[in-house]
């Protein structure tokens, strides 16, 4: 099927950055301890089911709550609960459980799984998906009768699975779908189809990976309810707002989740987890994480147990001699790992190590910059972009200055907003209906405006602050009834 690949204005292609992950899969083994937060992704925190000193098995449910929107949390290794404490997690504080591992790889199978999943009923499948924790995927989860998502199963009209690879650093869809994982992925989607019978399924991949698109299309040759298509890998093409607009030509009102318009957005791994849960009885205890950035000497995709501390993942793989900043999932929006002991969680698909560059550079502003990325064509990297890789590092590259209305943020905004205009309102503390009028809630917080700003103004942070202040004044985004 031939569809238009450019579906939104603005956005930015991060081309040819250094140390992007390679098409290779390794395993980092079982860590000596894992730390698992009882809040995973968007879920509410679940009550703990184990006590200090308990012996747990990998795959055993250690936290579960069927009353609030959440999915069960599992122990990811065999061992003993050694510590329970509060941990900073995605801006909140969440209870966490530390398990010291006995080093064995075995895990506990879910009851009722069946390699011939076709004979299972929809109810049985639903239960397996919920108990495995696979239902906690994405930004809104997969609906089951156990309240695992904010949306009801019968209201799901579309399921979008994305792997457009639009981030500066992120996993390769081809690696995630290599070999037998492609057929597992295909079966995963068929299982979801059985669960969510009324929904149409869309797989959105990088339009430039024609081979992969052909392979995936081939896997769904007999399933006319799946539509495989390519999208230009322009950041933020992997965002829900952009996907919903590109695939369904439907725009989401400001502040809505995809679920509010009957859409579930999942990534490739989420679908494979569904297959593993139903056909193999494997709970979500592992995740494939792309190791990106110059801070790592080797850049494979690593299979890690959930809760593995970063130091175990990075052991022996960190380049010496420089300071590195470790980021979770995204160089533009991700949180930083404050300590090497912080764990990998269920929603992690990339760990990025970029140079903490506080070094000064002489006459930086007149250098040709063959390896410096910029939205404006003022660096030689625009010419040599295909030959030389670009550096990703944390230097601010300039001083913060007043806004000069250069219009870069305006042109690049994928939501069609005027970030500088919103910034001026928030900066002057004008928090009222005018912000609603300028569609502040349409902002999907992709942070591209702050990326391109030559005055180095953290526009994204100001807009977020504006949203928070609006909410505290009672001006919420309009939710559908």
């Amino acid at each position: 099927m031939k569809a238009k690949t450019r579906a939104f204005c603005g956005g930015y292609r991060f081309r040819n950055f250094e140390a992007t992950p390679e098409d290779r899969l390794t395993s980092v083994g079982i860590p000596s301890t894992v730390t698992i937060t009882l809040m995973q992704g968007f879920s509410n925190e679940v009550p703990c089911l184990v006590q200090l000193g308990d012996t747990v098995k990998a795959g055993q449910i250690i936290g579960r709550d069927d009353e609030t929107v959440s999915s069960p949390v599992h122990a990811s290794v065999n061992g003993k609960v050694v510590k329970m404490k509060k941990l900073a997690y995605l801006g909140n504080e969440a209870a966490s459980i530390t398990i010291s591992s006995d080093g064995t790889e075995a895990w506990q199978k879910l009851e009722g799984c069946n390699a011939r999943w076709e004979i299972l009923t929809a109810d049985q499948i639903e239960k397996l998906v919920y108990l495995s924790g696979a239902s906690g995927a994405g930004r809104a989860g997969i609906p089951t009768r156990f309240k695992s998502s904010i949306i009801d199963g019968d209201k799901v009209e579309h399921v979008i699975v994305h792997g457009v690879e639009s981030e500066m650093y992120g996993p390769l869809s081809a690696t995630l779908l290599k070999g037998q994982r492609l057929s597992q992925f295909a079966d995963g989607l068929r299982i979801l189809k059985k669960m969510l019978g009324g929904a149409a399924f869309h797989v959105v991949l990088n339009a430039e990976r024609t081979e992969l698109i052909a392979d995936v299309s081939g896997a769904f040759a007999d399933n006319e309810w799946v539509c495989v298509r390519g999208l230009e890998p322009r950041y933020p093409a992997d965002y829900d707002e952009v996907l919903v607009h590109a695939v369904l030509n439907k725009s989401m009102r400001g502040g809505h989740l995809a679920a509010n318009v009957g859409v579930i957005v999942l990534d490739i791994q989420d679908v494979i987890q569904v297959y593993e849960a139903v056909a193999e009885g494997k709970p979500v205890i592992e995740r494939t994480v792309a190791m990106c950035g110059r801070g790592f000497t080797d850049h494979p995709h690593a299979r890690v147990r959930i809760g593995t501390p970063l130091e175990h993942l990075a052991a022996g793989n960190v380049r010496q001699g420089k300071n590195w900043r470790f980021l979770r999932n995204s160089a533009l929006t991700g949180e930083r790992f404050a300590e090497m002991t912080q764990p990998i969680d269920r929603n992690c698909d990339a760990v990025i190590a970029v140079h903490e560059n506080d070094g000064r550079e002489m006459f930086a502003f007149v250098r040709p910059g063959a390896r410096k990325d910029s939205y404006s064509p003022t660096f030689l990297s625009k010419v040599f972009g295909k030959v030389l890789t670009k550096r990703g590092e944390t230097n601010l590259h300039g001083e913060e200055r007043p806004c000069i209305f250069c219009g870069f943020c305006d042109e690049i905004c994928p939501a069609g907003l005027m970030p500088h205009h919103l910034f001026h309102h928030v900066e002057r503390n004008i928090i009222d209906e005018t912000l609603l009028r300028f569609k502040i809630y349409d902002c999907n917080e992709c942070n591209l405006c702050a990326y391109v700003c030559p005055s180095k103004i953290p526009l994204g942070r100001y807009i977020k602050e504006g949203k928070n202040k609006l909410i505290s004044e009672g001006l919420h985004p309009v939710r559908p009834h």
Partner: protein
Amino acid sequence: MKPVRLLLDKLYEIPALARFKPVIGAADAILYGTNETTHAAPHVVDNIDIKRYMILVIVALLPAVAAAYLSFGWRIIAIIMVSYIAGGAVEVIFAIIRKHDIHEGFLITGLIFPLVLPPTVPLWVVAVGVVFGTMFGKEMFGGTGRNIFNPALVGRLFITLAVPGIMTMYWQTPFASGPDAITSATPLTTYKSTAQAAVVNPAIVKEGTTQVLFTNPYAVKRAIHNYDSQFDGVEVYCLGGPAYKMAANHRRIGPDNAVRMVSYADLLIGKEPGSMGETFRLAVIAGGIFLIVLRISNWRIPVSYILTVLAFGAIGHFFLPAKIAPPLFQVLAGGLLFGAFFMATDPITSPFTKAGKYVFGISCGVLTVLIRSFSGYVEGVMFSIVIMNAFSPLIDQIVLRFKYRPVKA
């Protein structure tokens, strides 16, 4: 460079110099760049900064500066230095009082301002103009990013009104330097004074006519082929080579009359008098396109500005040839190209909405033609841009009202 680094670090520590931290910081940042890192997301940011942004505008102006140096001699360098020193002092004083860094925007004001002055301008006038422009055009409004009018134009406007003699009388002819440098009228002045005193594109040149202006070869042809035309003792002005060739070579005009030409080619390569930066128009066009390609200036304003002058000039010239000059002449003469590429595009003082940029460019074009044709002034670029600067916030508000409908309560 290590001693310099050590010196800078020492300077930071001297308590007596604490007030001059902006100056030391500016030197430091220019030499060594920044050591700041991003605090939170986005962790990796674009490499462009305001220094590079501004320095590229200067690069785009360099051909025009070089041409000005070749046409008018060393004096232009002195003028630019006076402008930078006097205006820079104002910028530094305000940075010290306000305790913020020195902003780079002045690098452009300080260079654009001398380029829109006549080459014979006295140095003290340059200093007065740039100080006034920076102080009342920018700092009084709150500094970079808050000014309503283009500071360079405020300065020029001030000295146009304060010392009118200097600004309108002495226009040095390019490539003629020395103590007795020749001065002459600018092409726009020629058109205005001639067109008002004489017949433009007449079909019959009657007896008693003293001056005739032909703007195209067809007009010449018509007048020549009408055998009632009397060319004895008539001064003939021609715009462009073809009209000139036809008039000068014709046996009824050429031998007995003074035939003068304003050549489009001369306008392009800077042989006609004008302000320092605007005469070599090829350099101005090249610089303007360079900035548009680098996305530093937006194409919408210059394109709509120039197209409007072309269109409005064509219509106006068709109906009122004695008042309104032909379109191509309007575009190439005077400061239009320089103004359209380097001053109307100033992002701070022009509208930030896309539709607003078109409105701004079109209005500037219409105003320029009107002021040039119907006012007492010969040139209208500066006035039109300053007037539209004042309207840009209003234009933006109106565009935003259409783009973002008010929310229903």
